[in-house]
């Protein structure tokens, strides 16, 4: 990508979706949630599901609290189908982490998967973070971001069917279109996948089921697919592999137009000064002052 006369050029093959706003969260007490979650284990076979979004971390110093990017589950109840993705500069006791953590607690701590991706070490060429203390902060020029300071993250999962071992799934994270190397020493894959019970909330800016980790960040162009529409989206767009999906959604560094197609628009929130998804069926409800910013991806 080059910048000429104040305009961004991402190359002739990349078309950016017109974008004027992002959702913004203060890291103190605000968040947004829906009345229905989208991620779930289904009966029968492994299903490909993903969570794609652009995010700008607004912290200027390391915190002893995680920053939740998204969560899904029931308020203050992590025992049943609780999902989250969070970035930790440090643990609550001050230990440096500089890592992103994914957890899906399907049914208590005996049935869950936890994945950790350090931003440093093997992932330095992808993230730009040079060490465990080279944190992802808004004022750290080492971090690889797009021209507007945003990172594209794609959590791409092959979710095991109900009753099958959590270890039969795949859970990968892509940073700006590149697959991060997992920290295998912190991996947890125990127990089996459980069916979704009830109607959990999808939440941004706060770990709703674990009641922790508010996020001081902006989030833009959220795109979640569940068990059936991911394959349709891939087929329509000629995407064969997981890397194809990552490349397509990263789009050379500018948000791609995924199209307002009813087959997947229910999982697409653009946050263009609106909390409603493109399908018009599942709005986020802003809580405690969550709002929008023109500082967008």
């Amino acid at each position, binding site marked *: 990508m080059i910048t000429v006369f104040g305009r961004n050029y991402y190359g002739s093959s990349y078309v950016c979706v017109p974008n004027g706003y992002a959702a913004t969260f203060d890291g*103190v007490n605000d968040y947004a949630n829906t009345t229905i979650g989208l991620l779930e284990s289904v009966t029968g076979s492994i299903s490909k599901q993903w969570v794609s979004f652009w995010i700008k971390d607004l912290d200027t110093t390391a915190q*002893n*609290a995680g920053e939740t990017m998204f969560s899904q589950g029931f308020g203050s109840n992590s025992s049943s189908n609780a999902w989250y993705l969070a970035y930790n500069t440090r643990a*609550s006791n001050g230990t440096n982490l500089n890592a992103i953590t994914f957890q899906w607690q399907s049914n208590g701590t005996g049935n869950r998967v936890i994945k950790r991706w350090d931003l440093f070490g093997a992932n330095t060429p992808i993230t730009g973070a040079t060490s465990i203390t080279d944190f992802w902060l808004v004022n750290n020029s080492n971090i690889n971001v797009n021209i507007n300071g945003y990172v594209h993250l794609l959590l791409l999962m092959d979710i095991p069917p109900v009753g099958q071992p959590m270890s039969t799934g795949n859970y990968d994270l892509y940073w700006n279109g590149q697959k991060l190397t997992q920290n295998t020493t912190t991996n*947890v894959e125990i127990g089996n996948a459980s069916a979704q019970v009830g109607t959990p909330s999808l939440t941004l800016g706060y*770990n709703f089921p*674990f*009641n*922790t980790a508010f996020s001081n960040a902006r989030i833009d162009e959220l795109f979640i697919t569940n068990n059936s529409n991911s394959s349709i989206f891939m087929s329509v767009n000629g995407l064969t592999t997981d890397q194809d999906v990552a490349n397509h959604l990263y789009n050379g560094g500018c948000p791609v137009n995924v199209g307002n197609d009813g087959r997947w628009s229910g999982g697409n929130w653009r946050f263009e000064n609106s909390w409603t998804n493109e399908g018009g069926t599942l709005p986020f409800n802003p809580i405690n002052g969550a709002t929008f910013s023109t500082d967008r991806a």
Partner: protein
Amino acid sequence: MRYYTYLNANEIDLVNWDWVYESKDTVRWDNYNEHFIVSFNEEYCDEFERFNGIPAMDHKVALNFMNSEQWLKISEDDSYIE
């Protein structure tokens, strides 16, 4: 610009909820359920300072305040991280 302050639990029915971004049902409580935090626009800073005697916090100060032992939540997730 948005400002923040914290109030005692027994003051929750004294808050003018039209002045703040939060609602009674969604306020963030500290770890001891003794205090809750609210936020408001600059025009109400003096009102809240007169009420609780604490200068309103700007966003940066409030963020640091949430990192204190009183507010930082240690969850099951954190116990795993340790």
